[in-house]
């Protein structure tokens, strides 16, 4: 299998399938942007892409390297402002957002700020950027990240961006918009959703050749498992051809 596609290609192809046609998505650079562009070129030609710095619905000639570079508003419908983009998310106009992050816990909370003491951190990460804003305001949060015990932890030491926080009802209690929250997490091993009642992370499909034990080994907490665990359909030839030929010909992302 490994010869047919690499794990980054797998993650991008699988993630792209969750973006519905005719919906709106706020994305960052890297894999999330690649997944959104791939969706546009396959099943979701009318997917509307927003970038936090102001770009709306660009016709991207190539992968942007920054969410504020000129590719993010090339032949766009509008080149606006951060204030306008975030306000649009706040009004409920943006259906999906696509995030990464250093660490994630069972409620889908993300840490991209620090590891160790905040005032003298062992590791300082960039912080929220626009991630907390998108995770608060967009309807459905998608996350792409590689699996690993140090990344998938019981409770993140610092909640940079909100998942379901401490569990059911916690987002609403905190003042976040009702009906919003983490939706799917796509890793190099599996796709996880969230259990309806408990809001805990739940394995929904295993990538080809991956066992549930393997996923559990790479996860730092007790994973719920869907009654209907499936095998993730592998990337199709068409997906791979478009991803390699049109979305990321320079292999900026899939070459990593």
């Amino acid at each position, binding site marked *: 299998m490994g010869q047919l596609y690499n794990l980054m290609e797998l993650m991008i192809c699988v993630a792209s399938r969750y973006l519905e046609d005719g919906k709106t998505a706020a994305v*960052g*650079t*890297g894999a999330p942007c690649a997944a959104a562009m791939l969706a546009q070129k396959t099943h979701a030609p009318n997917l509307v892409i927003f970038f*936090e*710095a*102001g*770009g709306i619905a660009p016709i991207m*000639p190539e992968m942007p*390297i*920054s*969410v*504020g*570079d*000129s590719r*993010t*508003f*090339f032949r766009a419908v509008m*080149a*606006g*402002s*951060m*204030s306008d983009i*975030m306000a649009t998310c*706040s009004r409920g106009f943006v259906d999906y957002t696509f995030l990464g992050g250093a660490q994630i816990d069972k409620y889908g*909370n993300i840490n991209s*700020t620090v590891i160790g003491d*905040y*005032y*003298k*951190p*062992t*590791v*300082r*990460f*960039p*912080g*929220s*950027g*626009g*991630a*907390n*804003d998108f995770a*608060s*305001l967009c309807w459905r949060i998608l996350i792409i990240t590689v699996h690993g015990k140090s990344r998938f932890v019981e409770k993140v030491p*610092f*909640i*940079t*961006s*909100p998942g379901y*926080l401490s569990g059911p009802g*916690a*987002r609403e*209690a*905190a*003042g*976040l*918009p009702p009906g919003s929250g983490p939706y799917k997490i796509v890793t190099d091993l599996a796709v996880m959703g969230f259990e309806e009642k408990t809001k805990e992370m739940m394995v929904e499909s295993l990538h080809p050749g991956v066992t549930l034990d393997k996923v559990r080994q790479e996860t730092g907490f007790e994973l719920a498992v869907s009654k209907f665990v499936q095998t993730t359909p592998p990337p199709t030839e068409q997906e791979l051809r478009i991803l390699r030929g049109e979305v990321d010909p320079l292999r*900026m*992302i899939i070459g990593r």
Partner: protein
Amino acid sequence: MKVLEQGVNPLFMDPDPDNAREFFQKKSRAMTDKRMTEKEAVERFIPDGCYLAIGGFGANRIPTAVIHEILRARRKNMGFLGHTSTHDFQLLCAGRCFDRVDVAYIVGLEARGLSPNARRVMQSGEVQATEWTNYALTARLRAAAEGVSFGIIRTMLGTDTLKMSGGKVVECPFTGKKFMAVPAIWPDVSVIHVHEADIYGNCHIRGISVADLELARASKRVIITTERLVGSHAIRLNPTRTLIPYFLVDAVIEVPFGSYPGNMPYEYFSDEEHLALWLQKEKDPDVFEKFLDEYIYGVSSFEQYIERCGGIAKMKELRRREALVDR
């Protein structure tokens, strides 16, 4: 106003709009020729210890020439608005220019990776930080631009980003729902790179404005670097395009290729090779020191920096990259 919850970290600036009003009342409204050099602008408007903000978006439409000059002037103990900052933050860390920062996005260069030196600085514990988000900082600037002491948003809620911020959770007087109140911030000075400006400081920006509309209005002093100067008639012919009116502006500096090594929309793309070189050289502090001497401290002007980076040939190449010819 009943506060339900609040962050523990300090505000670095006074959120009182009446103190800002007093300053702005005294600011000149005269339409005078504000052209000067980077040196003069830094000398006059960017003293040690002041609170600085940079326009654009990290490595897109940034005023590189003035940031280099801040390093050469050895500015210290500044405050910084870490809003969508990437290469600008990397530069100021290289100069160890600040000791406090409002954080939304720092130490990273987006898809390019993380800055080893910026991480060393932020992990040293020598820089005081208060945590926010990109929208929270935009909202703080927006509130300042509106002349009020706070703004209302729905982000940060429920997270440690809130706990480590200086914001407060309040109850809406109309709906009883919880909202995030963020304090207005009037930076001492901001530096913004634009496409066109006249000698008075009326500015055009092509493409996304990011948060520069709010930033220019919130800042007590505004320094403009511009790809090109235009006659005032070009401004008055199409006043719809003016994003920053002259009375906000204190200095105008014409700097062609002024956003290099960053991207300038419709003009030239970012120099990814040079930005990659930064990340590589930063790994070893000694190597990095020599690198800084070669490209910044040992250089007398931005023009000379451009020369060292490949001069006009490189600029032509970046213009081609930006123009997307053949596409």
